[in-house]
């Protein structure tokens, strides 16, 4: 296992190096540089332009810039964002990355759950209206053009119905006079969510370990109780209203992402289930006299899950990539929107930083899935 981890880490470092290299020269291949935005400004004398170039090191040849950048990156210095001068790139990313992660992890978790649930139900009771309705609506949503669909969601739920805000991260009117920053509130929200997930996992693990005969339904009231305590704590904290404002802004983008992506998991689950249903161990489970629901969930769906978990990594990476589109449509100030703005303004350090983060997240997702796979399928052991 150690050998595997060492090899794996080596591969990841190499991949990151390739990502940095390709991104760097891709951005360099764009015409102009950051200073060229000021070329058209008649108020700036040429000496000042040269000064700006020299200050950012843009006067050096590309290969020299590349080597300096490489050295800085591997020593942990991501540089200063040109566009947000003088904020360091790391500072900008630490603010923006969690917003993207929360959006996409929530959407992926929800769509995976819905897709898996519907998919296994479809395979178990084949034929009939339910299967047709879910297949057709799922396929329609899955193939929808994302920006158009996002705009339709905004039009329907924000503009016509007025249930949710049109976009952005927060409503300035609500936050006027607030004595805490949005990042502080959001950071605490993240901590609460992490604590809740850890609590829920712990409860389920304990029930599984100590009480085989306790039905898994027993976990539900305990977990619900935990959720209520967290919500109550927020309500009493005085900044609950501000947190609620952020949550409101999250609903539409998460819903849009979920709707366009759940069908992938659903159709995959259905196909995978149709394979496992024919397996002898499902027949054996039925012969053993297990209740229908246990045969489906414990045996058929549990085995059908294996290929779906692989697809989950790809959908996660795809989702983070797609953040550029979704965040633009919803004006959500996350990594995707930051990356888009940075690319358009030739903010080289910020582009590099954002790409580095996206690359690291993809690699991390791969590792997590590999570990998850070992846990899900006892036949797999990495050497």
């Amino acid at each position, binding site marked *: 296992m150690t050998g595997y981890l060492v090899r794996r880490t080596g591969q990841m470092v190499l991949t990151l190096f390739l990502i940095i290299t390709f991104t760097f020269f891709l951005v360099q291949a764009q015409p102009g540089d950051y200073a060229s935005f000021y070329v058209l400004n008649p108020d700036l004398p040429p000496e000042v332009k040269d000064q700006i170039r020299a200050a950012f090191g843009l006067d050096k040849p590309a290969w020299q810039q590349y080597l300096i950048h490489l050295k800085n990156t591997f020593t942990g210095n991501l540089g200063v964002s040109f566009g947000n001068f003088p904020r360091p790139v790391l500072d900008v990313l630490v603010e923006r990355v969690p917003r993207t992660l929360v959006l996409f992890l929530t959407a992926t978790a929800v769509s995976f759950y819905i897709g898996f649930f519907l998919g296994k139900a479809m395979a178990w009771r084949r034929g009939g209206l339910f299967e047709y309705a879910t297949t057709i609506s799922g396929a329609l949503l899955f193939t929808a053009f994302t920006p158009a669909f996002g705009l339709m969601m905004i039009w329907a739920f924000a503009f016509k119905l007025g249930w949710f805000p049109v976009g952005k991260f927060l409503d300035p009117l609500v936050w006027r006079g607030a004595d805490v920053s949005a990042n502080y509130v959001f950071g605490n929200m993240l901590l609460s969510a992490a604590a809740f997930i850890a609590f829920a996992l712990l409860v389920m693990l304990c029930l599984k370990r100590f009480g*085989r*005969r306790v039905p898994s339904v027993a976990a539900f009231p305990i977990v619900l109780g935990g959720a209520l305590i967290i919500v109550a704590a927020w309500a009493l904290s005085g900044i609950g209203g501000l947190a609620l404002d952020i949550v409101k802004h999250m609903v539409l983008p998460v819903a849009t992402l979920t709707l366009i992506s759940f069908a992938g998991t659903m159709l995959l689950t259905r196909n995978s289930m149709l394979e496992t249903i024919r*397996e*002898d*161990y499902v*027949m*054996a*489970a*039925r*012969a*053993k*006299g*297990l*209740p229908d629901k*246990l045969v489906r969930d*414990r*045996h058929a769906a*549990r*085995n059908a899950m294996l290929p779906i978990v692989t697809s989950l990594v790809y959908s996660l990476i795809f989702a983070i990539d797609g953040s550029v589109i979704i965040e633009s449509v919803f004006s959500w100030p996350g990594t995707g929107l930051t990356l888009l703005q940075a690319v358009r303004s030739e903010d080289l350090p910020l582009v590099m930083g954002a790409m580095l983060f996206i690359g690291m997240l993809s690699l991390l997702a791969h590792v997590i899935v590999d570990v998850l796979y070992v846990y*899900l*399928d*006892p*036949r797999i052991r990495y050497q």
Partner: protein
Amino acid sequence: MTDRHDPLLKVDGLSLSYQTRLGEVQAVRNVSFELARGSALGLVGESGCGKTSIANCLMRLLPDNARLSAGRVLLDGQDILPLAEEDMRLLRWRRISMVFQAAMNVLDPVYRVGRQIIEAIETHGVESTDTAARERVARLFRMVGLDPQLMERYPHEFSGGMRQRAVIAMALSCDPDLMIADEPITALDVIVQDRILRELKAIQQQLDMSIIYISHDIAVVAEVTDVVGVMYAGRLVEMGDTSDVFRAPAHPYTAALMSSFPSVSGERRPLTGLPGEPPNLSDLPQGCPFHPRCAYATDVCRTQYPPQARYGSHWAVCWHPLDATMAVQS
């Protein structure tokens, strides 16, 4: 209470068909037999003769396109065919368990082997605590010749023979009255086959359990059963005490099956395969369905289905039984 001498299982006029795109296929036609408590019955025949359909019917694990057109299956005098699904579910494994045909994939790859057996024990409440259930599995493992520590292993860590033993242990886990062994050893190598067969026989006698062996291998059935039924095209064509049937088969099909398997202990003789192909169930020939492949077929075989006749301790359905002198019309 039921009498010890009443048959445990009585199958009466069972008929089963499958709806397919090519029309209705009659897989089982009017099959009747009885099985005494503690005895072993064998069903032999070629692929597609309806053996496995009967097994699935006894467990009521039939595919959606199957239709039971007639018959009763009495377990201790109770007809299990009209039972509600939930009642049938509680009866499965507790009263009738099964060792499956393709035992290699019967164990779920993602759970420990012991866990999968405990699952059945828990479902039927055979043991009240987890510890007791584990002890029971350990006992079963020893009975089938497996180290009890293996229950913590996963199926892929087992060899073929070990898996089959585990599957047998699983079938025994709820003390069933009847165990159906559908090709229990077909996928194993010959040495393991013989050993497992002998162990099964010993376990059956030790637990006083009834077993139905389903096999295409006449040697297997001859070795371990008390009564044998030979099936052809969904019908029982000959049935009786195993030793009598194989000593003096009346139906030419039984004789043909016997001569297509080599005998280790018997005399040396050339093997003769069975000519022709297994019958097409959706388009059976008129009269005796075996007549196109039968060396003794005459005009009467081609037009009329033969009557059932008794020959000593067994009966057969044939116009020209091989040892006609023994024939006693029933």
